């Protein structure tokens, strides 16, 4: 289910950054939800997680919020996601 991208999006597109290293579910999702709430449509959040569950959780968060997962990079001990805020109900 996790989407893997090969070409990272240019870092200049990032409008906010959040590092949730060391935190377990549901905290990465909770904090990312709050961070995305501060953004306006089209802005991009760069999110770092170490919880392995976030490989599925963050795409689910983006899907449920109607945001776009631009990028998901899996590293040995962490993951980096780029999420673009979309339209909200």
């Amino acid at each position, binding site marked *: 289910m996790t989407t893997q991208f090969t070409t990272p999006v240019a870092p200049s597109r990032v409008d906010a950054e959040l590092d949730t290293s*060391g*935190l*377990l*579910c*549901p*905290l990465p*999702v*909770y904090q*990312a*939800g*709050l961070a995305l709430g501060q953004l306006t449509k089209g802005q991009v959040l760069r999110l770092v997680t170490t919880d392995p569950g976030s490989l599925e959780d963050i795409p*689910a*968060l983006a899907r*449920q*919020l*109607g945001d776009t997962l631009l990028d998901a990079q899996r590293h040995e001990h962490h993951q980096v996601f780029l999420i673009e805020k979309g339209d*909200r*109900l």
Partner: protein
Amino acid sequence: MTDTRTRVESDLEGAERRRRIALVASKGTLDQAYPPLILATTAASLGWEAGVYFTFYGLDILHVDRLEKLKVASLANPAGPIQLPNLLGALPGATAAATKIMKKWMDDARMPTVPEFIEMSQGLGVRFFACSTTMGVMGVEEGDLIKGCEIAGAAAFLDYAADADVQLFV
């Protein structure tokens, strides 16, 4: 035919409204307080409406005096933090020990406490329903409950749950 049309219409309607989760929290132990609060907080983070119905022992989670004193059972809890035969699990201090270990696990994992999860979920708009029958049976007054609870009977909760996409009993 009618059934099919009704289903399609309700699916279309679903696409234009927020999703909803309705949870029942029926257990009053520290370990069992976490799952409904975690799920409600997560659902609200996903942009869903979320409501938790606290009933029977689960009402302790909303009780101002009992909320901070929730415990982990050392008896009849074979997967609990201390692995003791039930005969030893009944000894004085065993419940306190199990509770202490669980709190340490959570703290070491940087997980929020139950009161912190309550604050987080209420901050995201999660609705807390206090079972009115439990209040009557157990002698709990409205003033005994944390702020922001709604007192509700089973019909009121089912009315809320009937429009939920996910319903779970914990």
